């Protein structure tokens, strides 16, 4: 890679931090350390160090601008303290919440990974077509190829991760920690069956 050739000029970390500020303020998506290193012509390790500097400067309580790690990269956002002022001027990403059906569908897509509408319908027990179309329209879910049967697969988008404040999909809680296990449910079913007159 030609990038490594440029590393000879080891300008101070402060200079690099200034470059990163500039990149972050114009970017319309979270930027990964690698993307920033590419653009800055510096190496990823030094970029991480400079990001550390910026994280301290742009932090809740110290600045109206906050640097956060989200959706697989770094991005500026407004400080939470200024939410009230922001709400007067800007639309909230999810103004009046998502319907229960939309949230259940998002949960299935986020946890199952790319999945089709029949997959979603099978788990939710109701047709998913209009809910999925609504989520695509909102930019929270996007098409991701087709399965062997030719059904379109869907995945969650980086915007989903941003709206829910997730560093990545792996920041979702493990499903094992949620709800009952198969054994619990089977025990309950057996208890009910035992009570039924034969």
């Amino acid at each position, binding site marked *: 890679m030609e990038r490594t050739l440029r590393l000879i000029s080891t300008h101070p970390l402060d200079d690099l931090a200034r470059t990163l500020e500039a990149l972050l303020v*114009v970017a319309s998506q979270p930027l990964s350390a690698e993307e920033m290193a590419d653009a800055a012509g510096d190496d990823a390790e030094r970029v991480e160090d400079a990001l550390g500097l910026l994280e301290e400067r742009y932090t809740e309580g110290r600045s109206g601008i906050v640097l956060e790690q989200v959706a697989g990269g770094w991005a500026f956002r407004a400080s939470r303290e200024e939410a009230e002022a922001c709400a007067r001027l800007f639309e909230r990403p999810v103004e009046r919440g998502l*319907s229960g059906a939309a949230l259940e569908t998002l949960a299935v897509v986020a946890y199952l990974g790319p999945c089709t509408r029949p997959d979603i319908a099978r788990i939710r027990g109701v047709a998913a077509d209009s809910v999925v179309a609504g989520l695509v329209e*909102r930019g929270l879910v996007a098409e991701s190829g087709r399965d062997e049967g030719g059904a379109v697969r869907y995945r969650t988008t980086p915007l989903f991760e941003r709206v829910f404040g997730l560093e990545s999909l792996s920041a979702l809680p493990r499903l094992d920690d949620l709800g009952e296990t198969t054994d619990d449910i089977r025990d309950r079913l057996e208890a009910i069956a035992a009570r039924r007159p034969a």
Partner: protein
Amino acid sequence: MHVRELELDLDAFEGPFDLLLTLVLREELEPRDVDVAAVVVTFVERLAERERLDLDACGEFLVLVAALLELKARELFPDEDVELGDLDPEEAAEELARRLEEFRRMKEAARWLTERLEQERDRFFRLGPAPLAPRAEPRIAPQRPETLVAALRALAAEPPQVSLGHMALRFPPVTQFVERFRALLRRRRRFDFDQEVGGLSRIEQAVAFLALLELRKGGELRIDQAAPFAPIRIEPAAEGVRARDEEGEDSWNARSA
């Protein structure tokens, strides 16, 4: 207790049970949009309010709700390869438990997302480009025309046939009726469903009806029925659009702020 007058308040429908059934029979409401569990819960709640068990009501309800459930199951899982009926009782219980678990976890995950969304409501970030950012050149890497051919060929490929070999009953393929109805509509402006399938077995009639639903889903035809049990008339759809019922959500999208 009059089962048919049972008042329902569902996502997709509000009103008495018999109106729900009428709408489903008239195809004005898709069975797959009906939350059958909520219907059952409503019935059981009403039942619990009574001092004595109303056996007549239970019987009638069971018949009606079973019919509704069957319609819905056929539409939702035409290609389900694990048929509960095909499993021994132990396996069936296992499968049922597995599905219940899946459903429960999904509900839990949805609840977690709901709470998360509430916590993250005060995080504002820019949607879209920065005001004074350099304009990105929409550069698209050169493509080969063969990728278009491949895409179209994939769309024209026959979907894999669902194996029904494990089922005791042999169903004629839905596609057979799809093609037949398409051909009919090319020749005639309108036809009568009952007349077309009159001489067929019940199974064949059921499959023919599924084909009709399939065609209607694709926006190819309209189905009219003046009243329950009146003749079902089929005609080509004026505008081949699949009507998508809008969710009652406030719309916003990535371009809104």
